[in-house]
């Protein structure tokens, strides 16, 4: 009998424990989640710690800095923008957990600048942003699939697709380096696969294709990759890698005296990230930047050192005043730029924004938004593609990307890289006065 009573109690205890764990907190009825009369709540998950953190951990604070600048200048129709940052450590599982926190706990209106291909794919598949009608503005990945409105109805790309980048680099190789032995190092996920689609479309054949698993990049693994590249006698090596992988590859190759013609994909060619990544190995900043010297690179936006560019100039000012002590680089420029894009999207959604209105506004007006990319974004009612054109340059000793031609010719293809590469004279929208949008 004692035992029976004890066991009933333990079941009751278990029930209470679970009930407490599921503590009742009924959602108050709001006009729209994450929007109040004074605030718009947005969320982002990025690697703030972990192997991919150097460089990428500057993106979200830069976005926040721009929003603080915007808030100091009136916000969005009087509402302040509050960006909540979560650390996903560049791990898809963590990205799901943190995105769930942003949606369920912090109750954000929209996600902005979610970073990483695998992370965004994991979020799309498990958090199901589309069916829950939660906008994800300007995902920081070039995976071409995110332009597919049917599959990802609320996700909007920012960068040109990796497929397009692959085809544009491939075409460059065909036209300029056809006689050389060409090799590729790429990430073994949809980032690398998407780029490979573009290279295949361009008809490039690689003598060696080194694939690495995200998170395994280090000096030790780079030794193995370089060994393979040397064995294959690669004269041109394309790196479709993140910066934390580019850094050990260039450092190990340099130490080994291996000097092919490097072609750096836009994702992993940030000079300050390279410096940060190599600092723990005792490589001085100037020496790290010099590793880029002579490498060919491409970009859809101006180099962060180009202070003649109006976007770069403004973002540098905002960085000085609202992001104190942070060195300005591509990551900061990207963060601030997509905060600017988000601000325009929020304004376009009107004075009583809803998630549905936001998505509709981005589809109808997104291609006119001011953005640092030299070509407009491809946000329409049928596609959610990002920017679409690249220019080629060569890195100098200081790690700055200087155009190969004075005209800074832009090359483009479609998001899925099915069309041949052509030159384009696309023009970007002018920066709003003081970088504060006034669109509607």
């Amino acid at each position, binding site marked *: 009998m*004692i*035992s*029976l009573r*004890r*066991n*009933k109690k*333990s*079941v009751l205890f*278990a*029930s209470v*424990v*679970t*009930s407490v*764990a*599921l*503590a*009742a*907190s*009924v*959602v108050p009825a709001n006009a729209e989640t994450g929007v109040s009369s004074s605030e718009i709540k947005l969320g982002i998950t990025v690697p*703030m*710690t972990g192997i991919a953190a150097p460089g990428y*951990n500057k993106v979200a604070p830069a976005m926040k800095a721009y929003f603080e600048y915007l808030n100091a200048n009136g916000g969005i129709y009087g509402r302040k923008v509050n960006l909540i940052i979560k*650390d996903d*450590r560049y*791990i*898809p*599982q*963590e990205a*799901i*957990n943190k995105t*769930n*926190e942003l949606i*369920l*706990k912090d109750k954000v209106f929209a996600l902005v600048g979610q970073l990483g*291909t*695998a992370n965004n*794919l*994991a979020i799309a*598949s*498990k958090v*199901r942003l589309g*069916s*829950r009608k939660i906008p994800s503005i300007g995902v920081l990945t070039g995976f071409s699939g995110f332009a597919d409105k049917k599959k990802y109805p609320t996700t909007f790309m920012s960068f040109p697709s990796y497929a397009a980048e692959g085809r544009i680099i491939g075409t460059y190789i065909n036209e300029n380096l056809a006689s050389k032995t060409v090799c590729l190092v790429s990430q*073994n*996920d*949809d980032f690398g696969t998407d780029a490979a689609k573009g290279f295949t479309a361009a008809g490039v054949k690689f003598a060696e294709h080194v694939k690495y*698993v*995200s*998170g395994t990049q280090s000096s030790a693994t780079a030794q193995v990759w370089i060994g393979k590249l040397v064995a294959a006698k690669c004269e041109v090596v394309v790196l479709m890698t993140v910066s934390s992988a580019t850094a050990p590859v260039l450092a190990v190759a340099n130490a080994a005296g291996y000097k092919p013609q490097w072609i750096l994909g836009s994702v992993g060619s940030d000079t300050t990230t390279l410096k940060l990544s190599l600092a723990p190995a005792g490589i001085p900043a100037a020496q790290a930047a010099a590793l880029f010297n002579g490498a060919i690179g491409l970009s859809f936006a101006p180099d962060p050192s180009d202070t003649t560019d109006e976007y770069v100039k403004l973002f540098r000012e905002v960085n000085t005043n609202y992001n104190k002590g942070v060195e300005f680089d591509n990551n900061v420029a990207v963060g601030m730029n997509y905060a600017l894009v988000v601000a325009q999207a929020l304004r376009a959604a009107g004075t009583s924004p809803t998630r549905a209105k936001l998505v509709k506004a981005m589809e109808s007006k997104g291609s006119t938004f001011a953005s640092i990319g030299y070509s407009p974004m491809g946000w329409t009612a049928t596609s959610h593609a990002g920017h679409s054109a690249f220019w080629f340059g060569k890195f100098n000793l200081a790690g700055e990307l200087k155009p190969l031609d004075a005209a800074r010719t832009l090359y483009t293809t479609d998001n899925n890289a099915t069309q041949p590469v052509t030159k384009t004279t696309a023009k970007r929208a002018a920066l709003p006065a003081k970088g504060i949008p006034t669109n509607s």
Partner: protein
Amino acid sequence: MHNLSTKKVFALFVIFGWILLIVADRVDELRVYQGATIAITTLAIASIIILTGYSGQVSLGHGAFLAIGAYAAALSQTYWQSPFWFTLLMSVIVTSLIGFVLGFAAGRLSGPYLAGTTLALAVGLPTLANQFTFLGGETGLVYDAGNPPARFGEDFTLYKWFFWISAFVVLIAMFLIRNLLHSRYGRTWKALRANPTAAQLCGINVAQSKILAFTISAGAAGLSGALLGMISIVAPSAFPLSLSFTLITGAVLAGVTSLAGSMLGAVILVVIPEIAEVISTSLGESEKVISNLPGFIVSVLLILTVLFSPNGPAESIRKRREHHQKAKH
């Protein structure tokens, strides 16, 4: 629940299930999601309790079984287009089979050697996903329980659907495990854990019992892995080595011999990150603090449990009560 008849225990499980459903209907989505996580973790911890708490075998790599279960379920859905219930069944069958094979090794190994073997499994297994393209690489495989049935209405959220599935499956699994542990097999494993030599002298086939415990434990872990894949992803990043350690921690916190305590362990594991966030926010939101604090709190709790309540708080409370009752008589 030692003296309760199976029918009464079944009735208690049904009542508990109803309580859960009623609670799930009255809380917000975050709590429902956490509820699903608690349910899944409960089963994962229970799988360790079967193995370690009852049969006395130590596995440091139980996360590997969760991964195998999740991949088995996802593969059967991806390549055979199997219905969801069948994918769960596949997760149990495949992990049980692998557990059975490993059980043979377990029969020959003990203590640190067995722990090391299972640890190696957990370290090596996730990398396999990157070696074979059909396993989906780092991005993993799509594994989906589908949308909630339309008849539940538009307000019936995805996470409530996940919770319903998880709670239903875990309650059934826990009922079966409870009955098993109170059967002849459970008593055999206990004897084995207490003194293998004495158990052998009593006529217990030690190797066979160890293999059976490994098989059933692996099957339970595989099922929880499939459910974990349902609410998260089926990819290497979902099954890191830390998952195995977290589950062991949960089992120790719960009391490694207490099946009922597995839920307590799961609740603690889910609640700790929330507590850590509150603390780290008050400390100034340093990213390093936020990332490392949950691990620190778990470690401290683990040390305190081992020092002051080595069989877990639930077991300590039970023993204290029994001591009081004896004193009264």
